[in-house]
């Protein structure tokens, strides 16, 4: 469903990706842990098609229309309301009007944004804007979720709801790649775990029942810094 083969990308002399390969089938979530500057965001930008890898290739079944991407940027227009933003982005992904309105109502309810639907995005707090960003990325019911630090700015309740939502989506056959520097954030959803350091996957393995302490310990050994 999602595969990468020898992805390499450099910003000048700095190698952000250095031969990264993996394959994810339906129902799997890959949590990519790594310190700042490890190349996690670049990996998602390449998978999303925003950057063309200098070597290697990435393949997403269903192409661009199948990807839901939460990046560090919301892509939302501040002077449009939340619902207008959701409708606009869904239209670009070919979601028909009826399905669009139904999906928007569902996501607004799940993410606690019903009362904010008619507010301009510029008037939202950071946490609420992040929820709107999540709704924007899920409007077209993507088969592949690329999530770059998706819990940033969310309060505990919203983060828990997002975990539930993502677990449902992956349980229903989607695949997800979550990047984070915090082991606690991504572990709950992960079926596979990768530690990324200086552009490389220094470890890639199924989670296989490892608990938080074991993963944190393995991360510390692989990357040399704490992941908590």
């Amino acid at each position: 469903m999602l595969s990468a083969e020898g992805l390499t990308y450099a910003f000048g002399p700095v190698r952000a990706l250095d031969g990264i390969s993996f394959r994810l089938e339906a129902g799997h979530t890959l949590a990519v842990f790594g310190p700042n500057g490890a190349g996690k965001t670049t990996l998602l930008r390449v998978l999303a098609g925003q950057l063309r890898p200098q070597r290697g290739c990435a393949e997403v079944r269903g192409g661009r229309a199948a990807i839901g991407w939460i990046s560090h940027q919301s892509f939302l227009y501040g002077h449009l309301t939340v619902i207008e933003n959701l409708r606009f982005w869904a239209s670009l992904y070919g979601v028909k009007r009826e399905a669009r309105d139904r999906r928007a109502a569902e996501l607004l309810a799940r993410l606690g944004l019903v009362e904010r639907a008619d507010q301009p995005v510029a008037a939202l707090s950071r946490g609420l804007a992040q929820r709107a960003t999540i709704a924007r990325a899920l409007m077209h019911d993507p088969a592949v979720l690329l999530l770059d630090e998706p819990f940033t700015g969310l309060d505990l309740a919203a983060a828990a709801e997002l975990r539930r939502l993502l677990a449902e989506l992956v349980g229903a056959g989607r695949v997800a790649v979550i990047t984070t520097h915090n082991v606690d954030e991504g572990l709950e959803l992960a079926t596979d775990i990768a530690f990324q350091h200086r552009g490389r996957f220094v470890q890639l393995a199924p989670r296989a029942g490892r608990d938080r302490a074991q993963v944190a310990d393995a991360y510390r050994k692989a990357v040399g810094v704490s992941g908590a």
Partner: protein
Amino acid sequence: MLERLKLAWVVARKDLLLEFRTRTAILSAVVFTALVLTVFNFGRDPTAVPTIDLAPSILWVTFTFAAMLALNRAFALELENHALEGLLVSPLSRTSLYWGKLIANLLFVTIVEAVGLPLFVLFFDVPVWHVLLPLVGVIALATVGFVAVGTLFSAMVIRTRFAELMLPVLLLPFLIPPLVGAVQVTARLLSGRPASEVVGWLRLLGAYDIVFVTLSTLLFPHTVDE
């Protein structure tokens, strides 16, 4: 094709909605138009050069620079929260994106021209009523050409420093053919010259539109892709 046009309209409608909400660019362009016409009105000596000789140039200089304000904002809108990146990774084709921006810019510039033309008539007392339809036709023909090129250049400069300065510097040389054509046709229309005198210029404007709308559509993907 129909699907691409539909998506282009989705982009254009979003741009117009944003402009309707903020009204910054449209108000600036309209005020700019009024100010330029006012300056020209009081800055000229009507006894030295007849109004009818100056008026066409004044009209087109005003429209051109007012349009720059619209063109500058076309892609600046997409810098907010990096929306352009989102557009480029979505399934939206580059053609739909370009056409959407083109449609929005055309409507925007048309509004500015619709306000500017009556002000022009008011300030310069030029008899346009008997040639109003052909004049509107010429304005439309010239506007399509320069907005098509302007939309392309607007995308090209948006990631550069000083984009607002770069756009006129790059764009103005490309606007010389449609501007010369538009000024010539407008001058002849206002002077009541026979239609046969403007046919060549109209052909030039038509050819410019066809060539540059096509060329800009083809080149646009190369300007936005990294």
